[in-house]
């Protein structure tokens, strides 16, 4: 199979299967071959069950031969961040703590992918427990950016973005607590969308910060992301915070919205100090493109931007310190071999099982929950600031259909660059507020730096209005060829 085929967008892969140009087994085998060839330098996968994957592909081909396809996506491979439960498969969260954990059940999103006949293709690397933005916090390996293997792919859904960018996969799932789908999508030059909080069930997804966590999709094109997003969204009795809202046919809505002249808000705070000039230029060129399409471009203010990082790191670490209390050496595979007492079982297992970043965040979370003028004073303060951020966005959306910003302040940086934890946190500035406000957000390629590294455009939408985001994103994609570029080698 030719390399070009592996980079086809979802709709053309479906056409290929329907037109019998290739079978699901042939397609899956071709992705496996490419993965084997590239993995020594990309390192996107933590584990891969080849036999199971091919079995699923052959089962799809049989269904096709018998005329009983489960969906139009039947037989299409999709990868999973190593945070989603898939029965019988490992789930490590890239942590030594869960190195030997095997999922006893399927996450709701996995059930939905299986019900659609999709081929579940490998377990993808991430920052440990989704804490980080480079994969350098993975306990097992660092994933490399396919555009320049000396650079980070972003994170925490590092493998999910890198595998799609490298053509090892056409689609993948990630999770986004503070930008972990959008930022790696930007740095790897693919489309990544995180819907409104509550759109996708969190059942079966290892928890980091429960009021912020949301699953998301990586795809080569906007329509591919829209199609898989629709498959995943919807109420789930197993997750009381999943929204009982109608899920639109996003692809149909994109078609219906073609030619519509939207109003886009451009917040000046997102274009200030710290923004790389090349990123700024590419994002402003995108704004200009929309202007020429006849969109209304409206300068807006989001004055709470500067509070986002503080509020986010207080809330996320507080929730994480609670969620990660379950890893105590009793039930979740890792127990220190040196533990002789119950106290040692707890403390040695946690000391040996967690990496530095996870420990740092647990400490910060516990600190913010136990310090200040009264119990949980700073946690309470951060939740009040969260309300201000929410209100700030709500005000902006009174006069705009979506907000346009950069996704990341810089293109991908080099692997191994020494930086303080705080400086790494500050690079999340454009994405975290979206999670605090529970809004849908996406990143799509909008240019390349002089060193040929992708640049991402972030679109932020009103709650439950993913259709507008996807429609606006598709209009940009239609007018550019960035999505079709492939990394060399």
């Amino acid at each position, binding site marked *: 199979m030719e390399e070009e085929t592996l980079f086809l967008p979802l709709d053309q892969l479906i056409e290929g299967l329907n037109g019998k140009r290739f079978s699901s087994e042939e397609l899956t085998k071709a992705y496996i071959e490419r993965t084997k060839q590239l993995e020594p330098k990309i390192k996107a996968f933590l584990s891969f069950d080849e036999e199971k994957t091919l079995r699923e592909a052959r089962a799809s081909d049989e269904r096709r031969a018998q005329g009983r396809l489960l969906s139009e996506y039947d037989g299409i491979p999709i990868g999973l961040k190593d945070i989603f439960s898939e029965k019988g498969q490992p789930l490590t969260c890239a942590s030594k703590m869960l190195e030997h954990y095997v999922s*006893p059940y399927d996450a709701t999103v996995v059930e939905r992918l299986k019900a659609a006949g999709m081929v579940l293709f490998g377990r993808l690397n991430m920052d440990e427990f989704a804490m980080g933005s480079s994969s350098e916090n993975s306990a097992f390996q660092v994933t490399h950016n396919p555009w320049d293997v000396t650079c980070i792919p972003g994170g925490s859904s590092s493998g999910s973005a890198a595998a799609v960018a490298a053509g090892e996969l056409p689609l993948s799932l990630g999770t986004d607590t503070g930008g972990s789908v959008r930022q790696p999508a930007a740095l790897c030059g693919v489309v990544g969308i995180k819907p409104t*909080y*509550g759109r996708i069930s969190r059942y079966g997804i290892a928890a980091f910060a429960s*009021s912020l966590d949301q699953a998301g999709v990586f795809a080569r094109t906007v329509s591919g992301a829209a199609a898989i997003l629709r498959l995943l969204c919807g109420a789930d*009795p197993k997750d*009381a*915070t999943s*929204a*009982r809202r109608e899920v639109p046919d996003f692809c149909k809505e994109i078609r219906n919205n073609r030619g519509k002249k939207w109003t886009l808000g451009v917040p000046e705070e997102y274009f200030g100090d710290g923004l790389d000039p090349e990123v700024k230029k590419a994002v402003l060129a995108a704004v200009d493109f929309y202007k020429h399409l006849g969109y209304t471009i409206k300068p807006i203010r989001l004055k709470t931007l500067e*509070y986002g*990082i*503080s*509020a986010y*790191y*207080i809330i996320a670490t507080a929730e994480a*310190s609670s969620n990660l209390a379950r890893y105590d*050496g*009793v*039930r979740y*595979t*890792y*127990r220190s071999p040196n*533990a*002789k*007492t*119950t106290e*040692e*079982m*707890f*403390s*040695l297992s*946690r*000391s040996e099982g967690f990496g530095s970043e996870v*420990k*740092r965040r*647990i*400490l*910060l979370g*516990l*600190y*913010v929950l*136990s310090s200040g003028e009264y119990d949980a004073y*700073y946690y309470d*303060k*951060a*939740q*009040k*600031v*969260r*309300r*201000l951020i*929410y209100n700030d966005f709500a005000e902006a959306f009174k006069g705009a259909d979506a907000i346009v910003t950069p996704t990341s302040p810089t293109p991908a940086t080099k692997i191994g660059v020494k930086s*303080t*934890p*705080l400086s790494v*946190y500050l690079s999340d500035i454009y994405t975290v507020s979206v999670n*605090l*406000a*529970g809004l849908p957000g996406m990143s799509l390629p909008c240019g390349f730096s002089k060193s040929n590294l992708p640049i991402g455009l972030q679109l932020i939408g009103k*709650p439950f209005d993913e259709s507008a985001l996807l429609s606006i994103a598709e209009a940009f994609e239609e007018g550019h060829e960035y999505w079709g570029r492939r990394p060399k080698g």
Partner: protein
Amino acid sequence: MKTSADIDQLAKIACIRFSEEEKVIFQQQLQDMIGYCFKLDAIDTEGVEPLLHTFEQDENTWGEDEPTTCDGLKMLEQNAPEMRDAQLAVPKVL
């Protein structure tokens, strides 16, 4: 977070042990992060209701009780570090 007693206390409630060298590093890093995060103190939030969750459904989520099958023991056995007689085994408590 001015004294090492704080990090000792946090380590205790986190159930994580740190070497003396680690304590120095973590303390400095925490200090930086706390210094940054606690800038929120300067923001006037008088009268602002905390936003605990952005998920605001107009009614509670209720469901019928339905019996389902779930082999909890098998699920535990698959991942527990140690089990004896179908129970989780831990080092002697007393």
